[in-house]
């Protein structure tokens, strides 16, 4: 099923750093130590010094290596490293700098005025800060339950469930929003019924939560399944045989084992939830002051030719993204240790 493989790979790529690190700790026996593989430029230079002084080589007890691959010539290394910096700099770093330059162009007071002086923008910030965590909470609780079920038990339909988890990765976010409009909109299948009960989903915050939850559904569970499988169930079986009840088993054994991976998944989920645009755009009806989230507010201000306001909101989103990125890096350090 291509959809499932796609999503599995999205997951693998998104969390590849963590998986790599985990692979080194848990499957150490199966893989050669990365040092023996990465004959890097500097290491090779050091090694040449060592071979010139056999005493040093003995002291450091470096593993024996076959004749080293020739270094790439200096000009090539410099050219490639320069090209990589130019690529990442031009594609990623300059845009980030540009956001802040544009946002702060008219000075800090104007910037502050653009953020807090505008009532609709304030509401958008508040809405994003409540919708995104709510979606993440739902997906976290679901992620723990689903990962436990799928990683620890074998049952008919397990493969189907695993495939279904990947569907949100394969569906365009606009299509995701469309599905909820078809279901809960006024012309939808359940919309008129819910409306009769006084519940409005589309063009209201429940729709925002549903759409955001759908789009970010796989992040936590996809992080936890490989983690639980890598850890294995020995400790949990021991706890059960020693008489732990399910509550104790979860809080004392399973959760401490998965906590960093769980936080890692939550961070990715949160980053995506804050920035979600397509699905939310479709279900929100973009009513200023009511259903405009921060990314939608960025778009609306842009359409109104209010560039300073638009960039002010964008800068806040960028700060959130950078915080999330730094938190992720710190976690990768922890997971690697």
């Amino acid at each position, binding site marked *: 099923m291509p959809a499932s493989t796609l999503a599995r790979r999205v997951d693998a790529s998104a969390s590849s750093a963590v998986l790599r690190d985990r692979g080194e700790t848990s499957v150490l026996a199966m893989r050669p130590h990365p040092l023996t593989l990465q004959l890097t430029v500097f290491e090779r230079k050091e090694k040449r010094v060592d071979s010139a002084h056999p005493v040093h080589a003995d002291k450091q007890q470096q593993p024996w290596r076959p004749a080293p691959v020739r270094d790439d010539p200096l000009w090539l290394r410099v050219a490639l490293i320069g090209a*990589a910096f130019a690529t990442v700099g031009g594609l990623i770093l300059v845009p980030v700098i540009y956001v802040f330059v544009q946002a702060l162009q008219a000075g800090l007071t104007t910037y502050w005025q653009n953020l807090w002086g505008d009532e609709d923008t304030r509401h958008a910030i508040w809405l994003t800060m409540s919708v995104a965590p709510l979606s993440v909470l739902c997906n976290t609780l679901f992620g723990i339950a689903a990962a436990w079920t799928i990683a620890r038990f074998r049952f008919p339909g397990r493969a189907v469930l695993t495939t279904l988890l990947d569907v949100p990765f394969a569906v365009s976010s606009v299509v995701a929003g469309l599905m909820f409009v078809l279901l809960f909109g006024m012309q939808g299948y359940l919309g008129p019924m819910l409306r009769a009960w006084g519940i409005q989903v589309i063009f209201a915050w429940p729709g925002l939560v549903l759409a955001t939850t759908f789009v970010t559904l796989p992040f936590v569970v996809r992080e936890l399944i490989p983690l639980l499988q890598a850890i294995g169930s020995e400790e949990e079986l021991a706890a059960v045989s020693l008489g732990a009840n399910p509550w104790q088993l979860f809080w004392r054994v399973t959760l401490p084992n998965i906590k960093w991976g769980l936080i890692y998944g939550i961070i990715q989920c949160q980053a995506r939830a804050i920035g979600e645009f397509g699905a939310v755009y479709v279900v929100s009806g973009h009513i200023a002051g009511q259903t405009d989230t921060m990314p939608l507010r960025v778009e609306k201000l842009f359409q109104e030719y209010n560039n300073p306001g638009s960039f002010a909101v964008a800068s806040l989103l960028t700060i959130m993204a950078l915080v999330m990125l730094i938190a992720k890096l710190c976690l990768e350090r922890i997971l690697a240790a």
Partner: protein
Amino acid sequence: MGTAARQRNPLPGFGLGLGITVTYLSLLLILPLGACLLRASSLTPSAFWAAVWTERAQAAYRLTFGTSAIAAAVNVLLGLLVAWVLVRYRFPGRAVLDALVDLPFALPTAVAGLVYSGLLVPSGWYGQWLSPLGVPGAYTRFAIVVVLVFVGFPFVVRTVQPVLETLERDMEEAAELLGASRWQTFARVVLPSLFSSLITGFSLAFARGLGEYGSVVFVSGNMPFKTEIAPVLIVSRLEEFAYAEATAIALVLVAGSVLALAAVNWLERRSQRYAG
């Protein structure tokens, strides 16, 4: 079924976990997907065809698939370069470079769109250099490709990087000992080993590009027949309350990406068979 699982597995929580999983997925996935298919099936085949194969829709498909493919191809080249540099060389600033690669995953796509629309207009930081060269800036197909390259950038790097890290150097050493030049070693030994991960990265970036909406609406100008991508067309159909037509176009988009991924999967499996 539950009891059978329990007999082999003394761990608790199977019933509760399965119950939560199935309920949650039914409400959030099965029900909306079902509504989507049901709505599309309310159209007669001829009405379905009329909805998905208008001139405007065809132009949108061509643009969506074309720009996504070009952006993914550019990403394969740039991603291979960055992954190679990150894995094979040590230099000051490497950690920063590595960290920045992930930023497009974290940065909201609306921000990316906003920024690139500002950078690419003729007076912008990039536009002022591009327009004298005759390269069209914002509100063109070129701009769509640029933001799709940004959005899909981490995929190729992050799929190639781990493969490159675990690549055995024996083969390269053997090639060098047999007298191959550095370039020959790279083209004949390294590149074939990376082929399947490059294809994977391409397909991920491509699929991401097909569905991308948030960043493209800012930079494309959304002119029908010219710079209107398929997701934008879906939204404009929705705003006309033409739900069935919007659903039909959405199904074509989903089917297209699934087909493309199936083809890529098949290619990849074939390449693995010959490699193994």
